[in-house]
């Protein structure tokens, strides 16, 4: 067993995590590490338990067993399995998006991004009292928050629609907005649940760029669930494969791609998925040759 890059400075360490729903074992003794500054992809067939892993990391479910350890750059560590969901986001700085988009659809894009900065603004408004009375530096802080929101709107190229309701956006734009909203919380680790689902090829390429930008300029580590192999292979540094809740492979994209167990898992699923994998293999061998 060689030590990989992500073993040296992991941002997230998942150890022996098991999640049961009644008799169903959705996640079975899962152990992996996500490296700091990496894009780690979590892949697997439908129902493999990927979203459940996310829910355990972000506190929406309490794992039946196991440990989830998050380490900040400054060395502070958080035991996620013991924290309530809002603290995982607020204190441990883990942000996430959802498989079926959850925006505040009746609020404008700007408002969505301001809500994401709630905790900082709450402190600035002196827990509202100062803000109401107009004392303390709330105004300045709110301006700052608007600037930050604008920065992210620029990044996702939706600035012109800042004052439109989020529910009016087309699907792809909603996905980007959800990512921007998560980034507005200033996360150490960003968890994205199928961000490329339902995007057209152009949007998908833009998304890749956005994610690489988040990794490189914001220096945020990413954990990514994705079905679209082209996205996975193109941008991820590290891939973890789940099947029926159990990890069946873990390594670099190239390693995982040639892992016979992964191929078997995908071949065993359905034609569409098989085709995808085969195409990937073709692309890869084509590139190599």
């Amino acid at each position, binding site marked *: 067993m060689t030590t990989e890059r992500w073993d040296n400075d992991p941002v997230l360490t998942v150890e022996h995590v098991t999640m049961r*729903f009644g008799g169903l074992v959705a996640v079975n003794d899962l152990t992996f590490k996500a490296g700091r500054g990496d894009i780690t992809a979590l892949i697997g067939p439908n129902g493999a338990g990927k*979203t459940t892993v996310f*829910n355990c990391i972000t506190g*929406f*479910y309490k794992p039946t067993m196991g440990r989830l350890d998050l380490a900040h750059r400054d060395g502070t560590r958080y035991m996620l399995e013991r924290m309530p969901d809002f603290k995982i986001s607020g204190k441990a700085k883990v942000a996430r998006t*959802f498989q079926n988009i959850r925006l505040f659809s009746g609020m404008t894009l700007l408002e969505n991004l301001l809500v994401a900065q709630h905790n900082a603004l709450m402190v600035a408004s002196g827990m509202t009292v100062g803000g109401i009375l107009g004392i303390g530096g709330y105004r300045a802080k709110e301006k700052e928050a608007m600037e930050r929101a604008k920065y992210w709107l620029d990044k996702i190229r939706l600035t012109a629609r800042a004052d439109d309701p989020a529910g009016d956006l087309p699907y792809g734009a909603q996905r980007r907005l959800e990512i921007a909203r998560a980034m507005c919380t200033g996360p150490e680790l960003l968890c994205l649940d199928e961000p490329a689902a339902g995007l057209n090829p152009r949007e998908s390429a833009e998304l890749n760029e956005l994610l690489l930008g988040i990794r490189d300029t914001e220096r945020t580590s990413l954990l990514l669930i994705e079905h679209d192999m082209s996205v996975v292979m193109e941008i991820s540094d590290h891939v973890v494969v789940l099947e029926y809740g159990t990890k069946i492979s873990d390594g670099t994209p190239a390693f995982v791609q040639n892992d016979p167990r992964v191929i078997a898992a995908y071949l065993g699923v359905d034609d569409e998925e098989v085709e995808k994998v085969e195409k990937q293999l073709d692309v890869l061998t084509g590139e190599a040759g």
Partner: protein
Amino acid sequence: MEIFLQQLINGITLGSIYGLIAIGYTMVFGIIGMVNFAHGDVFMVSAFIALIFFLVLTTWLGIASVALALFLVLIIAMVLTGLLSWSIERIAYRPLRGSFRLAPLISAIGMSIVLSNFIQVAQGPRNKPTPPMVRDVIVLTDSNGYAVTLSYKQIIIMVTTAVLLAAFWYVVQKTPLGRAQRACEQDRKMAALLGVNVDRTISLTFVMGAALAAVAGTMYLMYYGVVNFSDGFVPGVKAFTAAVLGGIGSLPGAVLGGLLIGLIETFWSGYFSIDYKDVAAFSILAIVLIFMPQGILGRPEVEKV
């Protein structure tokens, strides 16, 4: 011991009435996820219908047999109350199906106000005392001056409830209507795609719930011998409590919950204080909802993220 036995009998009687009303709440909630706030008032109206027809049958038409009169009254009340509930669903709820979630609830609250005030206007605000319909009682035990009695009224209530519940159970479990209902409960869109007439099924659910409420209304009138336009609210809330306690959406749960609420209420009155018996019922509602919102026989609701 005597007190215990007597309260047990009284509690089961009262609980039968609550259970019958509770089924209406539970079925409607199960199928369209709505608290039919007007159901308690539908129950009250049914008691008025029963009262009116009992008087008509005995005084105008001169039917001497109380049993026959009661039987006819029961049938008429079930039919007319079903009709009333059908109209209410048609007018006040159906146009709002699938819209803003609070709209049907507000509409139902409005309907509840309409029903009770309509009866107040049409039949007057005073209590309506009926002459006792069934008087006989069976003395079960009689020791040191405290007689435990089981009245014919109570027997009628328990037997009618049991028979109707059995018939109702058969309808829900074994007939195409019941199957359609369960299909709509699971997934209304899918049911519609598979050829279930969803609107009709929902309408019939309202009618069935109302018919059982009419049974409860008739029994209530016979048992207490008095009814008032404002009598819908408290039994309504208690029956809803029963539905929640038993696990909303579950039919046996509604009956079980009704019996439990009836027993708790009578025992509380018997052993503690009558003053606080409603406080007890409402507290149970709050406690159950807070600590076990799925109720006794209900399925827990999981939220998938």
